[in-house]
């Protein structure tokens, strides 16, 4: 499903048709980029948490949802300007993510419970968040429409249509990725994160406060997921308590596709998933988009069992 494989251009008897085809392709690629980048933000949270404690945090998709709702409340209900609502949502969601870790996952870690117990707990937390926010006095189970802070205008450059929303989403993600890159590779806490994900015990011996690092990782991942939620709300306008399930699932598979535990892998995987979905919908039919994306995943796993950029762990006997 790599770009450029969309199919042969129609008969060369009409060369302008071929040109138009390429423009449409470019527009679809842009659609896929927008979707893929939103997935990427969510996928990063999954990959970082997995890299550090080998846990598939099922509740992560719901943090995405909470981020979207917090943005909605901040922007629509409390009247904050969007450039305040977005960071506020990220900060609050980071706190919520860290709270979840502290209340639900840490007790299991401290007792040395099997990893599956943590997984089931994650599922429980996810369900709890979804049902709790569906209650009437919280968010209620209905859809909310999020008005856009700026008009979505369409530019046409050389035949290619781009909208301001698309530009905004992609730009914001790139900024966040740059910040993440900085944190992980140029700060002390980032170094500690990388150390803990390689070998927890060795890191502890070197004086790293493992619990703190784990908390921080959760917070960071949650902030990114919240940002994804805000962008999603901006781009697709409707939010509801169960909106996190599918994007969370897709982001997670994207993270595995790229190699779980690898940060560039998560971004790569997410972009591939986003493009695969959009190109399937644009050139085949929207009904198969999920099936094609998953088939892609399975095929990749068969040839590279640790994902595209993942490291194959050698088994020592």
């Amino acid at each position, binding site marked *: 499903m790599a770009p450029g494989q969309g199919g042969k251009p129609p008969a060369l008897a009409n060369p302008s048709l071929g040109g138009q085809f390429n423009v449409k392709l470019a527009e679809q690629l842009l659609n896929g980029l927008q979707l893929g980048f939103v997935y990427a933000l969510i996928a990063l949270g999954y990959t970082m948490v997995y890299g550090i404690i080998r846990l598939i945090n099922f509740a992560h998709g719901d943090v995405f949802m909470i981020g979207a709702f917090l943005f909605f409340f901040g922007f629509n209900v409390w009247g904050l300007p969007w450039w305040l609502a977005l960071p506020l949502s990220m900060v609050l969601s980071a706190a919520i993510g860290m709270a979840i870790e502290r209340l*639900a996952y840490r007790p299991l870690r401290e007792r040395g419970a099997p990893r599956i117990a943590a997984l089931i*707990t994650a599922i*429980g937390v996810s369900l709890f968040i979804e049902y709790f926010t*569906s209650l*009437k006095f919280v968010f209620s189970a209905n859809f909310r429409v999020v008005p856009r802070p700026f008009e979505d205008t369409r530019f046409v450059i050389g035949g290619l249509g781009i909208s301001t929303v698309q530009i905004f989403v992609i730009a914001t993600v790139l900024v966040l990725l740059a910040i993440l890159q900085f944190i992980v590779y140029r700060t002390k806490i980032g170094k500690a994160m990388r150390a803990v994900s390689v070998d927890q015990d060795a890191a502890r011996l070197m004086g790293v406060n493992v619990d703190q690092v784990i908390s921080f990782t959760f917070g960071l991942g949650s902030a990114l997921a919240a940002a994804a939620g805000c962008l999603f709300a901006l781009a697709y306008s409707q939010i509801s308590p169960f909106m996190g399930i599918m994007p969370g699932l897709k982001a997670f598979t994207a993270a*595995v596709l790229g190699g779980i535990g690898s940060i560039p892998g998560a971004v790569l995987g997410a972009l591939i998933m986003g493009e695969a979905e959009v190109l399937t919908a644009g050139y085949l039919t929207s009904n198969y988009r999920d*099936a094609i994306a998953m088939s892609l995943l399975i095929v990749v*796993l068969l040839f590279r069992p640790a994902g595209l950029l993942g490291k194959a762990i050698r088994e020592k*006997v």
Partner: protein
Amino acid sequence: MRPNRKTLIAAAAVLGLYVVIELLRQTNVLDGYWQQVMDLSLIITISALGLSLIYGFAGQFSLGHAAFYGIGAYTSGFITKSYGDTPFWFILALIAGVTAAMVAAFLIGLPILRLKSDYLGIATLGFGIIVKVVLDNTDKWAPIMGGSRGMLGIPHLTTFAWVFWLTVAAVLLCRNLILSSHGRAMITVREDEVAADIMGIDTTQSKTLAFVVGCGLAGLAGGLYSHLYPFLHPTSFDFLKSLDVLLVVVLGGLGSLTGTVVTAVAWVFLLEGLRILPEAFLEWRGVLYALLLVVVMITRPQGLMGGKEWSLYKSKGSSAAPGKGGNSRASA
């Protein structure tokens, strides 16, 4: 002579249980609604037993169990709807459902069972989604299956007798498999695949056997399910349903058939039972359920039975619980 006497007592107990429950149903002490709930709980039990075999005993982390449940449901439903609703067709349909599920399991298992733990989970999850998409689009090539609009008109052939005795059969099948050399091989593979390999166990065969049989049970459960409810819809076979079954197996305790059976029945009754809450609290159903789940896992992560079996048959020293020693990979 002790085993024979114990078998007779067990058989008598099971028969007695059947007679009592059937009486309650016939006299309508248990009304139509709860009868359906009971049928469903046993169907889920069969499915859960399948996953218990795959994951609890053989350690293969499968997140796509509902897909095989769905394959069994749609295949068998298609047959009775197209050909007839006599018991003959029903049996044929169930067999077809089981076979379809087993064939699918074999085919997808071949390439993916070599993946490790979490990756296997993802791959099965992916497969589950693919199956759901296929089910959503059945109206393109087999219009009577309804696609994502749902399938109506499958004859209501599932009765308590069918469900009960098939559950008993499933339990016996699993129990005998576990106690056999195949079963012991599976448990060994779960504990440490490398060591099992070294000891000469054909790990691929073990894993495939567990996977295929387990998915076959899911297919059987699906066939019974489709003939229980008047309406079949692909969303009943999505990823979330796979999680439900996984929940049941883990809560019951990995490596324990008793745990699986008890938890499956209790879980269905709990979910349905919560529906009778007064209207004001009805929306708290999901919240309570989730809270219960989290609390149980934190306080008792090894599940209800913790890997032990309750049986009239106490085999000395056999606890099939996953070991905690050295290899933490095994437990996921």
